[in-house]
């Protein structure tokens, strides 16, 4: 009865919102279709413009890194509330060491200090055994305070002040040869749907930072480690059933030390991105709660690297829209409403009443928004990731598959 099935891959095992890669593709295609339609109708061409996709990527990367940081920790069994603080560590060290020795050193410094802050969190929660949330919060506070303190000491002398660092040299960017101009050409021709898609792709291929590409690689890398490597398997079990792992001779403590340290490093690299690529300074308050959104993307992505990526793209997109024109936002809502309406129809046809009701509700809400509201307050857009996560938690709690023992205290030798 044993099947020689293919090697485990993400899509096969995913218990995410949609059931198979085919469905996901179809859904994405529908989304694009609808968006293009809407753009045609409303004239708000900004949604799928190259500028938007480029901005989305820029906003998404820090969220992605924070999310991956959260993922690594939670998969090993520890909820890392201190992601925000670790990001701050990244922004500060990247800017300072970047100023002193160049951006590449800045990046390296962020990685190292992020690793150390993760290790600190690990020792506190795993070895000493204090509450994970308290440790995380304390780290946030200490990191924020230390950043301000050290800024006050070092920056004024070299042209910054206590809230902003001296400017750092930028890292090289590039535009993908051949492909970028090709897509740009198509975009300019304004063919329905195809141009929109090309425009998006063009935006992704222009002015791309090397760092961006490098950081994006962490997604497949994380996936690969978690499901193909020995360490990854042990790490997952540390989060699912540490007692079982311990009974098979695995050192759960050590596994968690490593995982949480990496978690800190990833969050920190996200911060470094903010300071070196998205801008070229450290600025107080730069992280703006992204560490917490990172936690949200982990939930939203059902604890899978691909899901975290999708979540950060979605949240990055909404963030990017915020700085664009307001009618883009309205158009986006219209598009989302239409998609939700279609989904609702689909669910009704397959007799899944609850999902039908939820998507129907979203569709109606989008309709109401279009009719009654002239412009979307910034504030709601800021809160969108949080709201979305809360909705997911409320309605889809049963379908989510968090690591079974994430967040629960574990002591060696307990049965």
């Amino acid at each position, binding site marked *: 009865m044993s099947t020689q099935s293919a090697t485990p891959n993400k899509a096969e095992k995913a218990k995410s919102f949609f059931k198979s890669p085919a469905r996901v593709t179809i859904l994405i295609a529908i989304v694009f279709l609808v968006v293009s339609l809407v753009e045609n109708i409303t004239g708000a061409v900004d949604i799928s413009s190259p500028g938007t996709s480029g901005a989305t990527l820029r906003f998404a990367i820090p969220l992605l890194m924070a999310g991956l940081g959260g993922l690594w920790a939670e998969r090993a069994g520890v*909820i890392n*509330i201190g992601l925000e603080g670790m990001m701050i560590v990244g922004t500060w060290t990247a800017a300072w060491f970047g100023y002193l020795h160049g951006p590449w050193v800045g990046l390296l410094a962020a990685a190292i200090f992020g690793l150390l802050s993760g290790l600190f969190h690990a020792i*506190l929660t795993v070895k*000493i*055994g*204090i*509450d994970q*949330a*308290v*440790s995380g*919060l*304390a*780290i*946030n*506070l*200490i990191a*924020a*305070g*230390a950043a*301000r*303190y050290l*800024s*006050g*000491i070092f920056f004024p002398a070299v042209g910054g002040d*206590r809230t902003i660092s001296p400017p750092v040299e930028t890292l090289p960017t590039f535009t993908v040869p051949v492909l970028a101009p090709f897509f740009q050409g198509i975009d300019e021709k304004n063919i329905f749907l195809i141009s929109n898609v090309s425009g998006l792709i063009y935006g992704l291929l222009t002015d791309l930072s090397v760092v961006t590409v490098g950081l994006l690689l962490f997604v497949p890398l994380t996936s690969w480690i978690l499901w193909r490597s020995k360490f990854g398997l042990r790490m997952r079990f540390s989060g699912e059933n540490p007692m079982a792992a311990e009974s098979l001779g695995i050192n759960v403590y050590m596994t968690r030390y490593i995982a949480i340290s990496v978690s800190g490093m990833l969050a920190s690299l996200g911060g470094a991105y903010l300071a070196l690529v998205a801008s070229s300074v450290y600025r107080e308050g730069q992280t703006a*709660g992204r560490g*917490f959104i990172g*936690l*949200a993307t982990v*939930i939203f992505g059902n604890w899978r690297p691909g899901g975290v990526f999708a979540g950060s793209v979605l949240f990055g997109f909404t963030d990017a829209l915020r700085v664009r024109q307001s009618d883009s936002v309205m158009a986006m809502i219209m598009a989302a409403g239409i998609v939700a309406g279609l989904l609702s129809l689909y669910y009704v046809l397959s007799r899944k009443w609850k999902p039908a009701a939820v998507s129907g509700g979203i569709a109606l809400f989008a309709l109401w928004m279009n009719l009654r509201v002239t412009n979307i*307050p910034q*504030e*709601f857009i*800021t*809160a969108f990731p*949080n*709201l979305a*996560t*809360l909705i997911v*938690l*409320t309605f889809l*709690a049963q379908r989510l598959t968090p690591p079974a023992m994430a*967040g*629960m*205290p574990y002591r060696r030798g*307990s*049965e």
Partner: protein
Amino acid sequence: MTKNRIFWAVAAPVAAILNSLLFIYIILKIRGVDPLSMFSLMISYGFDPRNLVSELNQTIAYYLAGVAAAIGFKMLLFNIGIDGQYRMGAFFGAVVGGAVALPPVLHVLLIVITAMIAGGLWAAVAGYLKVRRGVNEVISNIMLNFIAAAVISYLLLPSMLGTLPEGSQTAQTFPIPASGQMPTIKAFDGEIYSFLFVAIFVGIAYWVMLNKTVFGFNLKATGLSFRAARASGVNAPRMIFVTTVLSGAIAGLVGIGTLLSDTHKYSMAFPAGYAFTGLALALLGRNHPVGIFFAAFLWSFLERSAPVLEFEGVPPEIVIVMQGTIVLSIVIAYEVVARINLRQQQRAVGSVSAEAQPIKESN
């Protein structure tokens, strides 16, 4: 309380404070600053009557945050949602207060009650999610904090519930008329919010609830031993929900002192960050109404006297690091003590219980 008990009760907090003092001492030394003179400068500045007053006023807010956190802690609930609950309470208290005109005492009472209801309701969302859906209250509260800030920010817009006074860029709520204001007490060359008495009352009520009522007994019992409480007839899910709401209601009061005696309106300029402070104070004060008060005062004192450090070229933010270190030291100390106790107990009881015990579940 025996002398021994009192000693052990304060040992950990005191040790934590000393530990972070040491830490700061070292850092200052590295900067080439004389720590002792810094400390004495801070102390003399902090105890200066004018500063004492603003410290006391800040203590009121911190104290309420601490009590709110402590209520949760007694049941092993982590109310990190104090940020959102406090905002909801302050905002809706201000809105309602600015929208009606009632005789003086009633007006104030209305504002206070509105604030408690708003805070409690906001907390109820997280409570409901926890009890009915098993959602981790830390995550949901973090999300709710952000959502609260966003919603209020939106509602503050002049087109909604707010107003934009002349010459100002910040939206705020309609000012509360005199009938909805609380007097201040003139002392030390300054003005102390009379809300201080409300805070003290809350502290007393908290103590009475915990130690004298059946509800408080059940609350403590559930926190001490979920299983024993359940076997004794306590309805655990209901307990969790009610405690969460109660904690939120108290959190809703955090900003009311300032609202009623000082600003008389709410705007986004109201400070953030009460959640962590509240939790830290509850830990530092060991969930005890008097302990939390001292902790709250210490916190305000540190924050108020920090700027003095600037004169010596030391960025005052070092105080934030100090606060973080105090909290860490405290929880580490608690953990270490708990481990020692446990080991002692295990040795005394021996392995007989271990043998005879059935399946161990995690709490």
